Structures are given as C-alpha cells and as structure tokens.
C-alpha cells in the first residue's frame, strides 16, 4: 500500500514537472522572441535550458564560450558584430532553425564569396570574372588601408577602383565596404575578421579562393521551443544579462 502511494506521489511530481515545462514552453513560444530578454520570468529558465542545448549542438564549432575560431571561419558569438541581421533573438532563431547555406530551402544563402583565382569564380553568377594576381594584391592593399593598417598606397588606390568597378566587390560589401547584414556580407572596414588574422596573406587567400561557411539547419533535429532556447542563450552571450528577481534570489541563496 505504501509503495503504491509512493509511486502515485512520484507520478504526480513527474506530471507536475512535465505540465510546468510544457506551460513554460507554450509561454516561451507564444511570446515575442525579441521581448524575452526583458522578461524576468522566462529569461533565466530559457537561458539555462538553451545553454545545455548549445553545449550539445553548437559548442563543437562555436566553442563552449561562443568565442568562435577565425582559423575555421566560425564567428565569435560574444561580441556585438553580427554577420546576419542585428543579433536579435528572432534573427538568431532563424539561423539556428534554417541554417546558413545549409541546403534548407529557407536557409540564408544569398552571398557566397567568389574564388577570384579560379577560372569560374562564382558557380551562381557567370558574370563575375576572375582577377589577376596583381588585382588580388591591389584589393588586399585597399582593404588594409580601409582598416587603417599600413600598406602600399598606390596599390590601394588601384584596389579601390577594382572594388568599386571590375571586381564587383561593392555588389555585396556595399560601395563603402561596410557590408550588408541582410545577406551576410561582412564589414571590411573594421578589424573584426571572420577568417584569418586580417593580414595581407589571409585577405589574399579569401579573395583568391573564396569563402562560404556553413551553419546546419536544426529545424528537423530540435523542437521549436529548444531552438528558441538556444537563440536566447546565444543572444545572452553578447548582451549583459539583466538582473532578474530569480537571479538575485539565486545569488543571495
């Protein structure tokens, strides 16, 4: 009899936890994703669960702390520089769900850096022409100049012409070189680099052989609530967490 009562109590606790969890997920999903970072009731729970999911699915590439890896072209998630969008929870959620160049039909895959040292720099756009070794050196000098680094000013001037002309770079990176977060074209005028150390050599490598990093789509592998939790956690990596009532209580405990 006692055993039956214990089992019944245990079942009740499990049911209560599941019910609470499902209610929480419901509230999380029905909320405006961009308002959740300011929601003291939802944020801590979502972030905690998101951290665990991030560790399982994302940390292998992005690193446990979200620091990225410029050697592999994996973006740093802890700074405020966003390749796609403005780094809002909904922007991040879309990427987690559908990926980048992931072959998911809804993935972000508008921009692919051409490989200018190949006969056909862009598989998609046959109008993009290959560049000569000198052209590539000039473009690298131009980018170094734009980033405020020392270089060959004459070559940089030639590179500027190429950037805004025959090279076609302006088409994605914008005429001022500041990029376009709508298509994931990086800002080339700052010193934040996705690939390499920003040196002449690494810039030349990017221009010569192209770049097209991939982020998988998790839509088929994670539930909607899990995806949102990961997005909230990733968002929190670059945003100072607001001190919530729960946090304060946890600290005092």
């Amino acid at each position: 009899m006692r055993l039956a009562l214990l089992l019944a109590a245990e079942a009740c606790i499990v049911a209560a936890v599941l019910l609470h969890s499902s209610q929480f997920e419901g509230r999380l999903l029905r909320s405006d994703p961009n308002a959740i970072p300011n929601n003291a009731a939802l944020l801590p729970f979502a972030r905690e669960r998101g951290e665990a999911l991030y560790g399982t699915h994302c940390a292998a590439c992005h690193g446990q702390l979200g620091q990225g890896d410029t050697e592999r072209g994996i973006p740093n998630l802890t700074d405020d520089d966003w390749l796609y969008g403005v780094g809002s929870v909904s922007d991040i959620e879309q990427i987690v769900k559908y990926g980048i160049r992931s072959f998911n039909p809804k993935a972000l895959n508008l921009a692919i850096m051409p490989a200018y040292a190949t006969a056909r720099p862009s598989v998609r756009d046959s109008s993009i022409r290959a560049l000569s070794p000198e052209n590539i050196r000039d473009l690298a000098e131009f980018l170094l100049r734009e980033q405020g680094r020392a270089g060959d000013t004459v070559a940089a001037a030639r590179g500027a012409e190429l950037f805004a002309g025959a090279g076609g770079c302006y088409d994605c990176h914008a005429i001022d070189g500041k990029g376009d977060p709508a298509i994931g074209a990086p800002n080339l005028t700052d010193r934040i680099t996705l690939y390499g150390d920003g040196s002449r050599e690494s810039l030349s490598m990017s221009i010569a052989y192209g770049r097209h990093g991939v982020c998988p789509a998790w839509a088929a592998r994670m539930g909607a609530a899990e995806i949102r939790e990961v997005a909230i956690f990733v968002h929190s990596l670059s945003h100072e967490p607001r001190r919530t009532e729960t946090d304060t209580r946890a600290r005092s405990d």
Partner: protein
Amino acid sequence: MPDPTEPLWIKVTGGGSRRSFVLLGGGALLGLLMAGYSLFTARGTSTLIVPPEDVALINQQPISRSDYLLQLQTLYGVDLGHATAAQRRKVLDDMIREELFVQRGRELDVASTDPDVRAAMVNAVELEIAADAITQQPTEAQLRLYFASHRARYASEGTMSLRDYVFPPRESAAAAEAAGLPRFSPPTRAFLERWHAASGKVVDEEFYFAAKIHLGDRLFEAARDLVDGGVSAPITGAEGIHVLYMIKNKKPVPFDFVAARDRVLTDYRNDAIGHLRTGDEAFLRKRANILIAEDVR
C-alpha cells in the same frame, strides 16, 4: 466488518489475482477501443488546439510561428511587438491562403502535370538529402584523413609571366635562333624588330588557369615546366612558330591542412551529399515498381 457476500476481487485490500486480471483486461479493451476508433475514423491525429509553436492549423497542417514572424519582418520590417493588428491579419491571411492552395494543389495532383512543380519537388528532395549531410559535422580526424587522401587538390593556383614570340612558319631559323638564346638573355629589341613582337596572349602575371586559356593547352604545357628566364624549344602552331620566354614561373604550392581546411570541409560535405543522394536514389529505385516498355529497354 467486511461483507462476506462481496466478491473477493472487488475488495481493495484483498490480494486476489482475479482483480488484477479483470483490471488488465479492462485496460486492454479500452486501449483497443480507442485505437480502433482512431484508426477507422481517421481522426486519430486531429486536434482542436493550435500548438504553441504554430500560429494556425489549416486542415491540421501547421503554419509555423517563426515563419509568420519572418514574414512580418520581411513584409513590413517589424517584429511581433511592433506590428499593427492589420499587418498581423494580412500576413496570416496570406499564409492561410497559400496553405489552402498548396493543399488544393495536392488534391489536384498538380505535380503530375506541371513541370515547374515537378522540378521544385525534385529540387526540394535533393536539398533535404543534402541538409541531412550538412547537419552531421565531421570530426577533425575525419577531415584530416580526407585531406591526406586528396592531397593533390589542395594547392595554391600557380602564376606565370612570360612572353610568347611568334615567327612566321618560313622563319624557322629565326625561331631556332631565339630558342637557342642562353637563359636570362631575352631576344634583343633589334632581333625582335627584325622579326616579330610578342603575341600578346599573356602580358602580365597570370594565374595558371588564365594562362592556359590564353595560350592554349599545348603552349601552356610547354610553359608550365619552364624555369624563370627559361626559353622553350620552337613550337609550331597555326599562327606560326612560337618561342616562349618565361619571366617568372611561380608553381602551385601545396596548402597545409590549416590553410586548406575550409575547402576540405566543403569537399568532404559535397562528397557526403553525393553519397547520400546516390544511396537515396538506389533505395527509391529498389522499393519502386518500375515497368519499362520493351522497345526502350
């Protein structure tokens, strides 16, 4: 006092095995009835509640909340918190309309008649297969192994600067004279003015692939092996006799794994996608009943 006339299996405190069997049987019967009802009414999966991850269910087909938010953002540049009621309604109505038409399209089997729909479906299935391959992240060891077994693919593109001197077919002696010049001694201006200038096919430093296009396969093969300052033997072609003078030949340099990693990963994934697609097609063919007319077998 317990009622002696009460059947033993009803007593809660009793330990009769008959009660267990009755409850077990009752549970099984209830389960069978529910399963049978669901199976034969085809309403087993229907629901009246819209799941939190969706904004609507159209004949049980969900319209995803995140797609709805994205659509709001795309159409009006606003997030949910800033969208007006009219904007929300418009987006939802559009999405419902689309879903209804897609469902109607399935009923009409438009894929059997519309080549665009067929192409889109083939493309979608191929994408789905590829997406599966992308989600499986290869380990560093797998990538290194792939790199080691395809080493030749990963090298820089070579570059060359050269002059291609063309002599008329009847001037083979002059061509031989030019070809016989010692290394680092390009033909003199007087010599060239007397005969012909460079063809102009390769003017500045060029990548190998570009030089190959400009020179043609035969001349490029001869040029590729020349060292800096080297002169080729006369090569007879349609335009005359060519003599190549190499100014600088920078041969392809193999990349190490770190430099090649990005391309290795892409190639690894492309191979994985290719294998998966082949496997999926084989599976589809295996399970399909394909009859082919005798005259086209």
